């Protein structure tokens, strides 16, 4: 009888006890090719923040992250395409320059503040910027992983590829630069004077190098 009682009641009691004692751990992040970097260039956990840059382990590129703090990285600011020698200066909208803004202004300011510990910020090549396109984006969101790249606008983002012939209504302006639109993910050539958005990139950054290791 005692043996039977033991056989009958001990296993369920043990299972119950184990179930009560064993509580599931909270969820944890999984491996991913994107990594958050803080403004000093230190790597951060996937669920930490705020962060200032993102390193893409697939390409080794460090990307600028947009904000809504009305500072120089504010996501709503737009820029005309301008390089030392050509393009159109000061034809975009931002608050941080005396005059209006162009791509060179953002590069100069980002390098000066050593954003994420690096001072070789530049415009991305179109092939580079295209690596950020994210077809699984949520409904109505721009085609990018907004969990890593918040404050991205559904619009055109400049690349460094200039001196491209313009077509159609812009033909008379002769040359423009390539932009990637983050609505459909397409590559477009638009006049330098257009106000488009910008996401800067840096290669050979210390932050990204450390993260990839």
């Amino acid at each position, binding site marked *: *009888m005692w043996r*039977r*009682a033991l056989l*009958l*009641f001990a296993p369920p009691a043990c*299972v*119950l006890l184990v*179930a*009560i004692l*064993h*509580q*599931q751990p*909270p*969820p944890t*992040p*999984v*491996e*991913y090719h*994107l990594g958050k970097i803080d403004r000093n260039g230190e790597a951060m956990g*996937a*669920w*930490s*923040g*705020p962060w200032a840059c993102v390193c893409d382990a697939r390409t080794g590129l460090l990307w600028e992250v947009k904000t*809504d*703090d*009305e*500072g120089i990285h504010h996501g709503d600011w737009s820029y005309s395409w301008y390089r030392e020698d050509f393009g159109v200066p000061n034809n975009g909208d931002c608050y941080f320059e005396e005059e209006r803004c162009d791509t060179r202004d953002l590069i100069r300011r980002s390098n000066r503040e050593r954003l994420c510990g690096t001072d070789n910020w530049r415009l991305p090549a179109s092939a580079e910027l295209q690596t950020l396109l994210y077809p*699984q984006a*949520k*409904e*109505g*969101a721009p085609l990018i*992983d907004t*969990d*890593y790249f918040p404050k991205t606008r*559904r619009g055109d983002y400049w690349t460094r590829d200039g001196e491209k012939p313009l077509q159609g209504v812009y033909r008379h302006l002769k040359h423009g630069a390539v932009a990637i639109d983050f609505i459909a993910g397409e590559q477009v050539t638009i006049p330098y004077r257009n106000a488009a958005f910008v996401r800067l990139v840096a290669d050979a950054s210390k932050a990204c190098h450390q993260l990839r290791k």
Partner: protein
Amino acid sequence: MVTFWDSAVTKYSKSNLWILFHTAAVLALLVNLSSGLRIATLRRPAIAQIAELLPDGRVHQLHFLGACALTAIACAYLLFRLYTLIRGGFRSLDWKNFDYHRCVIWGGCAVLAVSLASGWLLLSDTAALGSPRELHFAAALGMLLYLFFHGGSYLLQYGRRALLLILRPTRQPGGRLLASAAVATGVVLGGWHFIAGSAQHSLPVLRVSVSTPIHIDGAADETEWTSAQPLTLSTEGGANFANGNTPVTLRALHNTREIYFLISWRDPTESLTHLPLRKTENGWQVQQDGFHRFDETRYYEDKFAVLLSDACDFGAAGTAHLGRKPLDNKPANWHGHGYHYSDSDRIHDLWHWKAVRTNDMYLADDNFIGPPDIRRPGRRRYTAGYRKDGKESGSYVMNWQWYRPDTVIPKRLPRLAEQLARYESAGGDSDWVIPWFDFAPYAAENDDFPEGTLMPSVIYSSNRFEGDRADVRARARWRDGRWTLELARPLDTGSAKDVAIHTGTCLWVSAFDRAQVAHTRHNRPIRLELE
């Protein structure tokens, strides 16, 4: 080898029919107990401790199917008893053998009767009789005890022989037995099909002329509303409501283009203090109690949700999947309760009115429940099928750069300290919202607010949602312990993320009393009948 028991069994054995029904009853009871306890984990932390032992996923369907089987068996048993009683007179009751086991069985039958009666009452969503939930839960615990005192004691007394007695047929199952098994299964499945298909509340949608203006202002002063037939049902299981329960009354109108709902529910407190920030010694802190697990139940705004679907299955059109990780290959949820998603490609429409974040915009969030989303590594919370419709521009943002349970850095601070004067204490009916341009970007040198300062955390960055997310107009007012909400939407928006409304569309409602996810629910869908 003929043992003592084998010979005893031949004298004392159970008929095949008995074995069949007893086994079916045991299985149905186990299904109901395990699925019922899983449902109980939603709001009973003690039961949540053993959650790993319970089934997950669409347990409501399982529970109600088990309920049909158990009810059919109980009825059959009752009929059989009555029959023998009538045929054999009271002698057939056999008082002489009224031992311990008989006592337990009679007790068990009584508890089962309570369980079945309270279960069906729960399923009816009637507001009039008060909630039988506690009774149903107590009866479930009673049935658990019964399993021990009945099954356990037989096993203790007779060991393996007891199992042989109740499981091993003594004769070859005959044709009659198979026929009765088939009939019984047919009755249960037929009954289930009937109940699942017809157990719906019906809400007539009164037709009004296109020229009749219905103002979405929460005042509900149009005379048309008094002509619309109301439907009141009990919704249960929500945090903060008294006994988790609030009755909801619905009325509906349409003018062949738009549909209008007037919905009112009891909520003694108007909660507008949404996750406020408090200045502490170490910096600003989000006031919360559960928000870190995505299950805030204290510092949250009131909300209301309407689910619309072409499917009318139990468990919110079959989208309610309970458990920490109902999908093996998808992330778990933090609170362990479960999440909503669609098992097929079907889209279910979800309107989500929020007392702070959408009421001032005269809108409800237009969301949907679809198939489970992909894993998004940058997100701490995985919401499975519950997703937002396309949103073209910002609406509200929270006033922190990044949420952390200890301290946060606000996004923006008031330009003048006086702007915070009206938020001296949590609660009250102040608007806990700040317009973007009334505040300035955060700068540490401006952050000299005294300890204890309270600051709202919802910032409107633009006045309205645009695009798909702005299809549902909504406005509510709170007065004398009740919210009154008016809603309007085109019958057919043409969007693939919305459900077009017609006769036969099923609807569910849920009220949230300062709770992020712990909403009330009802069991039977509401079927719209357009005039």
